[in-house]
């Protein structure tokens, strides 16, 4: 693996850029592996990377039915933040943000992580009080957060709708260390890093069956043959239930819903921050990509679906939100929109846990928030697989938490998956 550096750029410039090596191999699957991760998305690739780097496991395969990073890794709005308040989530997402802060150096790959501030608009004294509680909790637990009054917000982001808004803006809750990153680069960086440790990333390899023996998984049937495994990790959020049932394990506290995201035609620099608008049933978040496109999204499509295509009423909802909060976007043309399918869980929080099968581990239930979580998700999932016990930080991210009366419900929305957006 070529280590990327200014020197490497210079040297390859002298030889006409012909000597760069592949970023990762395209290996044939071996007969068996110590660990098989199903799903080469951000979570699966990060898991393989940290299994190799932190725990010295080398004989790993990551199986992917399509191409790596082609699922939800490429279908999100790339927002990274840690403004979670519930015990467990708080430590987990803060750790994730800390991993993001050093990710480009760690991977020797520029993931274009940009700490451009996450600005949640506030529209009522009650919302400000709730934000004060949440952001004070963050400050007391090793993170950053602050409240902006209206003059501060106007100075930072002058072109929001301060004049005629249906819900007047009174300020904002801000996490300055939050921001966004380049989604493909994260997938590629983790893939290249894992491959550098000898991990086999096997694309176009769909798992079609699970063979069980004595309460364990002995092998996986795939579109590229049978592959044996000592340990198996599922990291296929969106399709977790399908693999779960393939393994004969029945039902899960998960429903699959789809979420759309949008990008406009490229504009000159307009918005330096990630801005979030949520009041009275509206839900909207927007940032500007480095190419200039306005990247934004809103609510779920509201009904269960595995189809990776969005419906039109949500396009209208989101467009209305966009123009209500940034009227200057009224004449901007939409370039494209896409939809990802996601595991919506019963309390809006994820699962990184052991399963009823001795050597099967589950990573799923990421709801809206999988992108920002991916470094810590891989970190703790790798730790779980390597040591066969959950780290205290993820001890409540198991499937049995509802039986214990533990709901990690940041929104207080109750056990209805579609409400946890």
């Amino acid at each position, binding site marked *: 693996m070529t280590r990327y550096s200014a020197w490497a750029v210079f040297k390859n410039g002298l030889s006409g850029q012909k000597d760069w090596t592949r970023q990762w191999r395209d290996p044939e699957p071996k007969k068996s592996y110590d660990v098989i991760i199903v799903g080469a998305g951000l979570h699966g690739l990060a898991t393989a990377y940290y299994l190799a780097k932190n725990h010295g496991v080398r004989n790993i395969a990551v199986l992917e039915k399509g191409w790596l990073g082609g699922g939800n890794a490429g279908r999100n709005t790339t927002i990274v933040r840690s403004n979670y308040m519930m015990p467990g989530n708080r430590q987990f997402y803060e750790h994730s943000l800390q991993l993001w802060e050093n990710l480009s150096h760690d991977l020797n790959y520029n993931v274009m992580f940009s700490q451009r501030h996450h600005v949640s608009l506030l529209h009522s004294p009650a919302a400000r009080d709730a934000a004060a509680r949440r952001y004070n909790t963050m400050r007391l637990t090793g993170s950053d957060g602050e409240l902006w009054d209206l003059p501060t917000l106007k100075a930072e982001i002058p072109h929001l709708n301060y004049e005629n808004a249906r819900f007047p803006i009174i300020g904002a809750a801000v996490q300055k260390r939050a921001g966004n990153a380049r989604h493909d680069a994260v997938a590629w960086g983790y893939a290249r890093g894992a491959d550098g440790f000898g991990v086999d990333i096997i694309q176009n390899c769909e798992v079609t069956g699970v063979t069980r023996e004595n309460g364990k998984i002995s092998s996986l049937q795939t579109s590229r043959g049978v592959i044996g495994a000592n340990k198996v990790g599922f990291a296929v959020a969106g399709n977790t239930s399908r693999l779960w049932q393939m393994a004969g394990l029945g039902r899960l506290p998960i429903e699959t819903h789809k979420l759309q995201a949008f990008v406009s035609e490229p504009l000159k620099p307009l918005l330096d921050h990630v801005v979030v608008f949520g009041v009275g049933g509206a839900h909207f978040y927007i940032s500007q990509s480095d190419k200039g496109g306005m990247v934004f999204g809103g609510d779920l499509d509201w009904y*269960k*679906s595995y*189809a990776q295509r969005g419906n039109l009423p949500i396009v209208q909802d989101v467009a209305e939100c966009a123009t209500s909060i940034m009227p200057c976007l009224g004449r901007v043309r939409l370039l494209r929109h896409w939809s990802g399918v996601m595991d919506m869980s019963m309390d809006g929080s994820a699962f990184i846990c052991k399963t009823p099968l001795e050597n099967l581990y589950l990573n799923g239930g990421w709801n809206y928030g999988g992108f920002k979580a991916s470094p810590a998700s891989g970190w703790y999932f790798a730790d779980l697989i390597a040591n066969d016990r959950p780290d205290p930080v993820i001890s409540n991210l198991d499937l049995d938490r509802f039986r214990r009366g533990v709901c990690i419900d940041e929104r207080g929305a109750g056990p209805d998956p579609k409400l946890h957006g």
Partner: protein
Amino acid sequence: MIRINCPFCGERDHSEFGYGGDASIEYPPLDAPMEDWHDAIYLRENIRGMQAETWHHVNGCRMWLVVERDTMTHEIKSVRPAHAGNAAVLANSAPGDKS
């Protein structure tokens, strides 16, 4: 846009409806063991394919419906009233009478 053929109002855009969820869930008796309630509240089959689900015609007749819909293709196979009483009313009304 999904079009749902409401038995009371005729074919309407899905944006007139509120989504309920998996219609196969049956809540146990109030004094049932906690485990039964856990399973009914929290566990889902999460079918990829044809599933029965409840929709509420909230901006129409306000009736709850059971819709058989494919969660992959969004094709709708059948729509019927969710409650037996409503189905009986519909069965007794004259053909074409949607009042």
